[in-house]
């Protein structure tokens, strides 16, 4: 990377944030005006939603298993092993389900979007699209944005469900806890605010994954090397942003629901 003076560096970063804001804003505005590319949106839903299902199921399931194992060990010290189901479900629904789903989908799809759009950019396909009278943000970014936000919401529910299921299997078959007691404490302690908190996060994460992935793809320069660079940047930035936004949303939700 070429060395530049601090003022040029700061200007470049501010310009990048400005470009990102313009792209994200335009993609949102395009939702409310035509034409809409429904076929592209359903293709992306299939790719992002159905395509990510195996990794989300596995991640959710094994996270739930590990969480149950760790919880039982810790709760035994306080004689509260019966609260394992509650701890697993609260952790999965409020925090681990949304964040891990966001991170896994970010690794898979933000990278995919950046490399796909980056390849199109360096081979002039995006310019060709503009030359043929198509707005690339409307055609490429908006369908990915809608598809990611929509599918991440449901993927999070799947991850939560498999996490609780994984926790149940470990608690019942490895730790010998009562299954009915586990499931009972799992849902008894979940309140409305927990569910809202857990399902608000994927909306933000989906937005971050799609806009960051597409932004780095659309600003790719420098041939195949540039595509690789954009892909790495998209995954790093979207993953960090998901965790930072998770903190902000959690704080806001605690402010609203008080827990």
């Amino acid at each position, binding site marked *: 990377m070429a060395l530049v003076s601090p003022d040029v560096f700061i200007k470049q970063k501010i310009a990048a944030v400005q470009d990102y804001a313009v792209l994200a804003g335009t993609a949102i505005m395009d939702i409310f005006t035509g034409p809409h590319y429904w076929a592209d949106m359903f293709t992306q839903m299939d790719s992002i939603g159905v395509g990510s299902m195996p990794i989300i199921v596995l991640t959710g399931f094994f996270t739930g298993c590990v969480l149950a194992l760790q919880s039982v060990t810790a709760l035994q010290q306080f004689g509260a092993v019966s609260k394992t189901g509650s701890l697993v479900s609260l952790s999965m629904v409020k925090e681990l389900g949304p964040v891990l789903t966001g991170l896994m989908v970010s690794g898979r799809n933000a990278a995919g979007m950046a490399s796909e759009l980056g390849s199109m950019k360096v*081979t*002039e396909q995006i*310019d*060709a699209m503009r*030359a*043929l009278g198509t*707005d690339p943000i409307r055609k490429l970014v908006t369908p990915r944005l809608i598809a990611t936000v929509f599918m991440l919401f449901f993927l999070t529910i799947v991850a939560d469900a498999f996490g609780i299921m994984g926790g149940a299997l470990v608690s019942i078959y490895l730790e010998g806890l009562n299954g009915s007691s586990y499931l009972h404490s799992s849902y008894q302690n979940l309140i409305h605010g927990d569910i809202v908190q857990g399902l608000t996060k994927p909306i933000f994460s989906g937005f971050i994954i799609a806009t960051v992935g597409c932004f780095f793809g659309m600003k790719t320069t420098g041939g195949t090397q540039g595509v690789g660079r954009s892909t790495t940047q998209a995954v790093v930035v979207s993953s960090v942003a998901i965790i930072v936004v998770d903190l902000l949303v959690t704080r806001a939700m605690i402010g609203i629901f008080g827990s």
Partner: protein
Amino acid sequence: MSETQTSSGAATLELPEGVPVVEFKDVSIRFDVKPVLHKISFAVERGQTLILLGPAGCGKSVLLKLANGLLRPDEGSIRIFGQEITTMRDRDLYAMRAHIGMVFQESALFDSLNVEDNVAYRLHEEHVPEDESHARVVEALKFVELEQAIAKFPSELSGGMRRRVSIARAIISGPDLILYDSPTGGLDPITSTTIIELVMKQRDVSHTTSLLVTHRLQDAFTLATHRYDAAKGMAPISKDGPERGIDDSTKFLMLNEGNVVFHGTTEELVRSTDPWIKEYLE
């Protein structure tokens, strides 16, 4: 400016008399701190073919992207079909591009679409019925003599075939202006000649206004001294006729280091006494 519908279904623009199709006035652009084009001015009349010549990196492709609104200049005015495009809203630019065809340097075909869908891209965007769209794709592919490749994907095509598909995609809507960005770049001489014949065919059959970027002098002079004939194909223009072996509608614009060094006819170019031009032509 008004539109009329042609038999092929494409809308053509009717410009008032005397209004050039392309007009650059004092156009400058720089990338970061590096000036690329400096105070460029020229005009292209309806039916004219302007060949942009110059060494690599002199700003020819940038000029073409400016003409299509893909880049915006730092200074100056660009009028396409009489409309100022430097201040035009993106939405209006997309609408205007329906009248402009562009052939990219590396073809820029959509690699996830087959040849038919690539060529019909604009028709699909305009929701042209599938039957009509297919018929127009076949017609465009026949023009570039590639109808047998209709179901193939870009990865299955040679460089020359990709360029021909790119030309078919550019001409399918019957554009009023075609921008060719080095259509023969990186091709062997025989394939280059085929591509130049297609450019010539489009010029002489449809009389479409065009800007053609090339750094191959041979291609430029072939275009300026030959004409497409339906019976004979590409043939030299007779030196004994009124045109004295040169196509009147073909003009040249030479760039060097972002400046215009020549703008005129073929005859004026070959008779130029400018030492840089003479050296370049030799």
